[in-house]
């Protein structure tokens, strides 16, 4: 009796794979509904509203020099801020995970403050500190460095609000990396730099990319903390969210949504790229 029933079992509908965990359809249905209500429908409304302009109107609204300058500033400053946060967030996470020192818990708690603080408060504080007569600004001004009311100020605010994202994504992964792995590298003759570059960084790369993506996403949409320190000079230090607000104040709702649509699409594409990069780096050591 070697003849086996050869007809493969009819492949069930993709979503109906058997699982011992009950409630899959209920949970998935709920998730989709929730996503639709909270995210998709409002975003779709943005897209829909922008179509009122027609192609020509849309093009006109989004290619004015002032708008283009704000695109450049917003995405440029957000990318730079996220990159800076990756470097310093890694150092922060490293210090918190690897060393025990008095005040560590307080430092750990302080990291989350940019999450909790009303962004306007942060913006005003930063603007006051970095203004030419502020505590830090007065030190920098004689050196010819102006921070407040320039694109650099925008960068400072975006770094401030993005830091927790990197620290909080890297920290648990770093905690998971046993000190033994570093000891093994040392026993094999690697110096600190080689251990860092060849062992620690590759291991942390997926988490660093996640942190980067989150810090970037947050920075692109940030409004409150930036407008106070930015000075909001047309063509120089106006960010996209501000452009949208400006349009809204002029009752140009369609124009505002047109800018929002561009912002959404570019942000989505960039985040998608980061996620792909992350999936690619993760594949190496998560293959099972």
């Amino acid at each position: 009796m070697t003849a086996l029933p050869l007809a493969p079992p009819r492949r069930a509908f993709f979503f109906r794979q058997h699982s011992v965990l009950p409630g899959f359809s209920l949970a998935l249905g709920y998730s989709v509904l929730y996503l639709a209500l909270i995210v998709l429908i409002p975003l779709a409304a943005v897209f829909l509203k922008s179509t009122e302009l027609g192609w020509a109107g849309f093009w006109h609204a989004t290619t004015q020099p002032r708008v283009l300058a704000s695109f450049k500033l917003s995405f440029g400053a957000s990318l730079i801020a996220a990159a800076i946060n990756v470097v310093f967030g890694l150092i922060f996470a490293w210090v918190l995970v690897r060393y025990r020192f008095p005040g560590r818990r307080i430092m750990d708690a302080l990291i989350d403050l940019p999450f909790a603080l009303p962004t306007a408060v942060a913006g005003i504080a930063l603007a006051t500190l970095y203004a030419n007569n502020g505590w830090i600004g007065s030190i920098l001004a004689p050196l010819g460095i102006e921070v407040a009311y320039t694109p650099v100020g925008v960068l400072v605010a975006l770094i401030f609000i993005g830091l927790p994202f990197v620290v909080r994504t890297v920290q648990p992964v770093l905690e998971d990396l046993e000190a033994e792995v570093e000891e093994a590298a040392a026993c094999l003759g690697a110096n600190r730099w080689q251990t860092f570059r060849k062992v620690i960084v590759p291991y942390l790369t997926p988490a660093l990319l996640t942190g980067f993506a989150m810090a970037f996403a947050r920075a692109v949409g940030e409004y409150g903390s930036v407008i106070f320190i930015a000075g909001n000079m047309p063509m120089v230090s106006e960010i996209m969210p501000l452009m949208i607000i400006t349009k809204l104040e002029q009752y140009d709702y369609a124009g505002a949504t047109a800018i929002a649509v561009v912002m959404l699409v570019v942000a989505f594409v960039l985040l998608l790229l980061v996620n792909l990069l992350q999936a690619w780096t993760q594949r190496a050591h998560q293959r099972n």
Partner: protein
Amino acid sequence: MSITVSQINKRFGSFAALDDVSLEFPSGELVALLGPSGCGKTTLLRIIAGLEQADSGDVSLDGVDAAGMHVRERAVGFVFQHYALFRHMSVFDNVAFGLRVKNRDQRPSETEIRRKVTDLLTLVQLDWLADRYPSQLSGGQRQRIALARALAVEPKVLLLDEPFGALDAKVRKELRRWLRQLHDELHITSIFVTHDQEEALEVADRVVLMDHGRIEQIGTPDEVYDHPASPFVYGFLGSVNLFHGRVDGQSLRVGEHAIDLPSHDLANDAAAVGYVRPHELQLLPDDGKTQGGLPARVLRITSSGALASVELSRGEGEGEHLEVTVFRDTLRQLGVKEGDRVRLKPQRVQVFSAESAAPLLAA
């Protein structure tokens, strides 16, 4: 390379991990550091590797003081209990790591590295896994890769920290035979830490027994098993039956019975404890004709394979429990069953004073 440690002290807070430890590891030997957890064996290994600093004392490698030497310069291969493989690297890259981080002037060419790594993977019999990642390997395979990785840099000493501790019993048994064979081929000075006495006795040329940060005994597996230097060693190297009594010339009085003793240096009438291994107690049926020995009652007989383990109780009811190991055939010939009365004759006894045995009994 020979290793000498002298007068090493190491404390963690108020806990003395190592207390004035001096030891010599001759070149080419496979030595086991054996002891219960917290006895300081791993700490000693890590101090030799340079992963930990001793509070005082010296380590010298081949007669050269290692105090100022960094881990990198000590030329030790270290194998960790949980493998510590680089998860984001393939098996090949893991093994090649030590070669690739060498200074440019000492670094072999990529073809040379390829040849060497392939040789090592063949040595650990895992050349077919070169392209896999650690997460795709079993525990035993991971540990063999870790060993190949450690050997890649041609260390003069191999230090293994509970290398088989995280593996299941069958794999552990296979791997320790394999480690022994590998050592016989390479003759590299090796120290391995274990809390498993069977593993230490089976694999090592010499066994160093440690307890509470001190060395209890050093010797070949036969020496430490046959002539334990202290009650601790006796108890740690396998099960043991204890007979409490008083010394009376060349015998030990246990109640109204007596056990013959070998030569000893205990005073007459001193409180003492006789140590007898389960297989060194002769079991005889109590048919009225048997002379001498201690009376006991069989509680339970459990057999596994060729051997049977007989649980006995001395005196009536819940007396002291004893254990005897005999061949099942012997037991069948004697016709001893559960509930029977028997007499026990120790074939070999070692006696220690009651004070020296006390800390062990309290534990």
